[in-house]
């Protein structure tokens, strides 16, 4: 009997998790042919959500995984859910994903019946913070970057505590940390790398329609901040987001100046060594990476 395993992609946020999820959603048959199964993003909201459901009813996730792997055809079940570790920021927190260690422990217990691996995609902290802020604006928030940054301690943006929790509960050989900068090689290569990590012998060569998720420009950001207080529901916010991404993206107007150059240099210097140790990547001077399907 083929040993079945579980690959759990925990994000982080703003590292093209949506791109991977959409690819898997749209290519279930190809994945199935390669003996890879997957749970949908929507399902994971029911079983894990932002982590509370995992803490209160982990058996639901276990049952679902059992059900998915009841078909012996599948060798690997892939689960991708970037909200698993909770929100990345919290006022007064000591590190990124302050609830992460607690949730990682619970996740490890839930996955205990199967050989499992965890994928964590990371990006430099300055990019991560800026990208997450823009996402919040798209979701309807109205604080300026400066106001929002007041709630974040720039000295508490370490990935290390989360990484420590993952290696503690899963074992270092079962945790893969990937630098999001890989997206610069193109979306198809990014997806291909993800699939190779799942199964080094995979024959899948992604040829996926690019998911363009252009970042809004500085002008688009100002418009969003001005408009958000008048938007009443998700439909309106989504319409506004789509409109701004289409007509006020950073392809036409200047990018939003969020962190100053001085701040970026300081942040990178502070976390450069940690980042290199985690990913093997040497942090270069800040260069922008398109948010792709994040």
């Amino acid at each position, binding site marked *: 009997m083929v040993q079945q395993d579980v690959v759990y992609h925990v994000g982080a946020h703003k590292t093209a998790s949506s791109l991977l999820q959409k690819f898997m959603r749209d290519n279930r048959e190809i994945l199935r042919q390669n003996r890879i199964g997957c749970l949908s993003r929507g399902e994971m909201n029911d079983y894990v959500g932002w982590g509370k459901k995992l803490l209160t009813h982990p058996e639901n996730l276990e049952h679902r995984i059992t059900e998915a792997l009841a078909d012996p055809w599948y060798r690997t079940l892939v689960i991708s859910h970037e909200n698993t570790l909770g929100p990345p920021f919290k006022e007064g927190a000591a590190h990124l994903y302050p609830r992460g260690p607690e949730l990682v422990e619970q996740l490890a217990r839930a996955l205990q019946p199967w050989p499992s691996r965890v994928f964590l995609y990371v990006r430099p902290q300055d990019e991560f913070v800026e990208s997450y802020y823009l996402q919040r604006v798209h979701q309807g928030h109205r604080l300026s970057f400066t106001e929002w940054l007041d709630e974040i301690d720039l000295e508490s943006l370490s990935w290390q505590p989360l990484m420590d929790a993952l290696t503690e509960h899963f074992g270092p050989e079962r945790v893969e940390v990937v630098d999001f900068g890989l997206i610069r090689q193109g979306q198809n290569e990014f997806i291909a790398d993800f699939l190779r990590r799942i199964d080094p012998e995979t024959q899948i060569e992604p040829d996926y329609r690019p998911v363009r998720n252009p970042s809004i420009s500085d*002008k688009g950001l*100002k*418009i969003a901040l*001005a*408009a958000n207080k008048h938007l009443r529901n998700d439909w*309106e916010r989504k*319409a506004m987001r789509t*409109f701004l991404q289409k*007509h006020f993206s950073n392809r036409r107007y200047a990018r939003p100046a969020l962190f100053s150059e001085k701040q970026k240099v300081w942040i990178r210097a502070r976390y450069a060594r940690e980042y290199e140790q985690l990913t093997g990547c040497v942090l270069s001077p800040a260069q922008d990476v398109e948010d792709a399907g994040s």
Partner: protein
Amino acid sequence: MRAPELVLHVGFQQTGVTMLQRALCRLRPQLHRHGIGLLDGSSLAGLESVEGWQCKKTDPKAARAFEREFAELVAEEEAEVARQCAGGVRRLVVSSAHLLGRQNVNRRDGRPFRRLAVPAVAQAIRALGPPRVRVVLYTRRQDRLMEFCYLREIQKGRAHTFGRQFPHRLEPVFDYHELLGRLESLAEVEEVRVRPFELVGSSAARYTDDFLTALGLDGQLDLAPLGTDLAPYRVYSRQALRIALDINPLLESDRDRRLVRDFLIERFPGTDEDATRFLPTYERARILDSYAQVNRDLFERYMPDLPPHAYASDEATDRLAATRPGDPDDLKGGAARDAHVAGDGNSVSKPTPDFRASVRGLPGRGTLLQRSVWLTALRLRTRAKARITWLTNLRG
């Protein structure tokens, strides 16, 4: 050849002028067969000498150049009609809200209202030499007119307050009655036909039918070519208006303004009711109060088939829209109800008999002194009422 009778559709702005022009264009072949020529504002605006159009200030030389070109344009249209109608052109329709003055409805409107209307109409008469002129005006209740005009400015990308655009909003500046009186003073103007847009503007067919009545063509044309796609100018919802007021100052190019406008109209579309319901109730009441007399005079003089208080309250005005044209009894039935104070904040009180007697029946509606006294009294009364309301609310 004897010049045809001239029918001037002079607007007013924000009364579906463009919609009517488009409708008439679709009926152009039929109009031609009935000996009726048609020119709209875009034809005139396209003339090389348009700067000489006296709907705005211009010098005499430019004005003469415009008149020559205008006459040539009319001659072309008449030739076209003559090809379709054996009897030649018997009537020429010129439709343009600019005939009352080429400016948007805003703070520059003052006394006299649309001061360039007479020169512009006189110029058309001079250029074409018609034996008779009929002026057709569709009115819009003044508070709603201001709201529509304001909304239109915001949709163009501006972000000023309503008060800035209409500092005169509590004075009866948009006095249709006085304006029509000036137009009637032109010797060639034989008839002035006035209709409230609220009565006919609910559909292109209804509106067109009403206008064709002014041409003596009621019921004679097939309106099928109008189709179903003619619609009034699309407006923002109140939510879109709030968004636009915050976004518009951030937009720097016409492209950006157009994109935002199209997006807001598409995603946050409004209805006519949205467009004309954002004034606070108390302010609307004050505006209606200030226009009560001039509107009553307007209806009594030019629309005797309609209730004189049709513009006195929302209920009375909305009843116009709900009524079929040609049912004077149906309309007049509400007159008694409209004539008294309803006490709902949108109502107005009737002027005192002594006050009315001071202006009724006098040429030009009273001397300048009487008019000044009347305006001052109106202002004082309006302020007193507002103060009483404020004190009452304070106590409450």
